[in-house]
């Protein structure tokens, strides 16, 4: 495909290819260098001194980091479950019913997505210290509650959006058919609508999980000394200096995110394929 097959085949034109290559380099070179130097056998992260996995080994000896990682996973898991339940209810509500204030609800629903993270972060900080103080001495994992609630707040909007998009492709005639065959509201919800929603629920759950795992700014304001999450811990290390250990920790998180993204894309791809067939 060296020569354009038509005037709109922009991808085959060399200036655009050069441009794309430049953008690709810009987006990927920093990440690739980060990953490569996580295997560098030196404290310095500029000159290559040979391959090693000792920085990864050191991560697994760092109790604080492991605890932070455990916290992150628990927070992501629980907040995802909450976001899934509340988000699905929201999507079903907006799809199924007509009611006063619906347009307002739709507008408000988009706010947790667009409100600046820093504003939401400080709001949670004040809320969980001054208004409803979250007891710090609760046993693990209950002490993570404030962070979980904060994460569920911004991720349930995303879940609602994804599930609603899935509902838009629902064939209304199926409900009429079920009703014609004698099913009531509950049976229709359980037997007809929820099975149709499964791909949307999976995609929404993966999205919520990734968002929670990735969040730094909001968590930064909500976490206390005993409730450090992985990104917050990495931030503390980053503030200190650029070290191969941080590179290794980052690489692991990149890998985890890439896996989750691939899973989401694959599930959505399989879903699209099914619809096309």
């Amino acid at each position, binding site marked *: 495909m060296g*020569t*354009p*097959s*038509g*005037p*709109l085949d922009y991808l085959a034109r060399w200036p655009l290819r050069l441009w794309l290559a430049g953008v690709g380099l810009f987006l990927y070179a920093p990440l690739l260098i980060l990953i490569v130097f996580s295997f560098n056998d030196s404290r310095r992260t500029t000159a290559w001194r040979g391959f090693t996995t000792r920085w990864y080994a050191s991560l697994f000896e760092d109790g604080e980091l492991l605890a932070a990682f455990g916290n992150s996973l628990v927070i992501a898991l629980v907040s995802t479950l909450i976001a899934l339940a509340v988000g699905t209810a929201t999507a079903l509500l907006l799809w199924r019913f007509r009611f006063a204030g619906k347009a307002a609800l739709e507008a408000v629903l988009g706010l947790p997505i667009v409100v600046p993270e820093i504003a939401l972060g400080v709001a949670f900080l004040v809320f969980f210290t001054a208004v409803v103080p979250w007891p710090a001495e609760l046993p693990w994992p209950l002490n993570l509650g404030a962070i979980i609630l904060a994460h569920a707040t911004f991720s349930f909007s995303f879940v609602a959006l994804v599930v609603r998009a899935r509902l838009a492709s629902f064939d209304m005639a199926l409900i009429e058919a079920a009703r014609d065959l004698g099913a009531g509201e509950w049976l229709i919800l359980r037997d007809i609508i929820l099975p149709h929603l499964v791909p949307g629920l999976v995609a929404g759950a993966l999205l919520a999980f990734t968002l929670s795992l990735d969040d730094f700014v909001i968590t930064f304001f909500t976490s206390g000394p005993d409730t450090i999450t992985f990104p917050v811990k990495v931030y503390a290390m980053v503030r200190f200096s650029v070290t191969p250990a941080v590179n290794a920790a980052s690489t692991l998180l990149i890998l985890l995110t890439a896996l989750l993204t691939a899973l989401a894309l694959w599930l959505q791809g399989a879903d699209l394929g099914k619809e096309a067939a």
Partner: protein
Amino acid sequence: MKGDAIICFDGVTKRYGKVLAVDNVSLEVREGEFFALLGPSGCGKTTLLRMLAGFEVPSEGRILIDGQDVTAVPPNRRPVNMVFQNYAVFPHMSVADNVGYGLKVDGVGAAERAARVAEALALVKLDNFGDRRPDQLSGGQRQRVALARALVKRPRVLLLDEPLSALDAKLREAMRTELCQLQAKVGITFVMVTHDQDEALALADRCAVMQRGLLQQVASPSDLYEFPASRFVADFIGSVNLLEGRLVVDEPDHAEIAVAGIAEPLFLDHGVTGAAGTSLWVALRPEKIELHKYDPASPAPPHPGDAPPGRNVVAGTIRHVAYLGSESLYEVELGDGQRLKALRSNLTRWDQEDFALGEAVWLAWHACSPAVLLT
């Protein structure tokens, strides 16, 4: 000059990956003619038109316009303009801005532009529509805008992609006539893509029939219908009975072809170039088959025009009747179970009652009616 070749496809091939969309097509379009590219969907006709417009670049071969190789010329520098299937009228511009767009990008001054836009709008009978927005127009009006927009550039060739497919049946009929008149008036060569054979036969001076990327036949509409070059063309254009047969007699002035299920070999009033025993096909149009009453008491076959007695007749039973208004289509089952279609004009209001379902009939046809196909 009228009649000279204006467009020439020279061995043009287009591949998309491994898919062959257009396969080694060579074709000439003459100055001033209304030319149709006809074929089922996916036959490559649209690709051929888009290559002519410059939206696709051929994988192999050359395209010449006025003798100049335009294969690598981008669409904005070709002396052709196109009327798109969905009309592609710019929704954010008024009708006049749409029509004047091509002149504007060519740097034509405002005064001349206004005059030419008005002239083009008058040509398509949209005189006072210049200030309208496209969303205030009907489908037929949008098509006129698209026509005016292309014609205002005074192209050497006007390309039309399925021009009538998006219109409803009545409007389509009216637009056909109008397109013909428009072409006669402006004298520009028109190249049209269509999957609708009626449209092609009614509008075009000549048609190219395509199938699976291959050019099947280029001929006038009547030649395509009466003298098809292949079973595909015979079957694609109109309705046809295709009979597989074997050549038994081949003389310069007549030929005889044995067909299973018909007692005597079919008689043709012309010779066939082929050795005796060659297997071939006979294409017989339904309207060229006559229906005659069958009288069991005296089963003498009728005598169809120019064929020797007893030839080109076969007895059968009517198994299906479709009343179509102006004519009736009869499906007649022969002794061996094969069915032939015969079409009969309803000349009077009572003709449709002449033949009934289940009735035994004779089918007969002239020696000059069947077309012999070797492929």
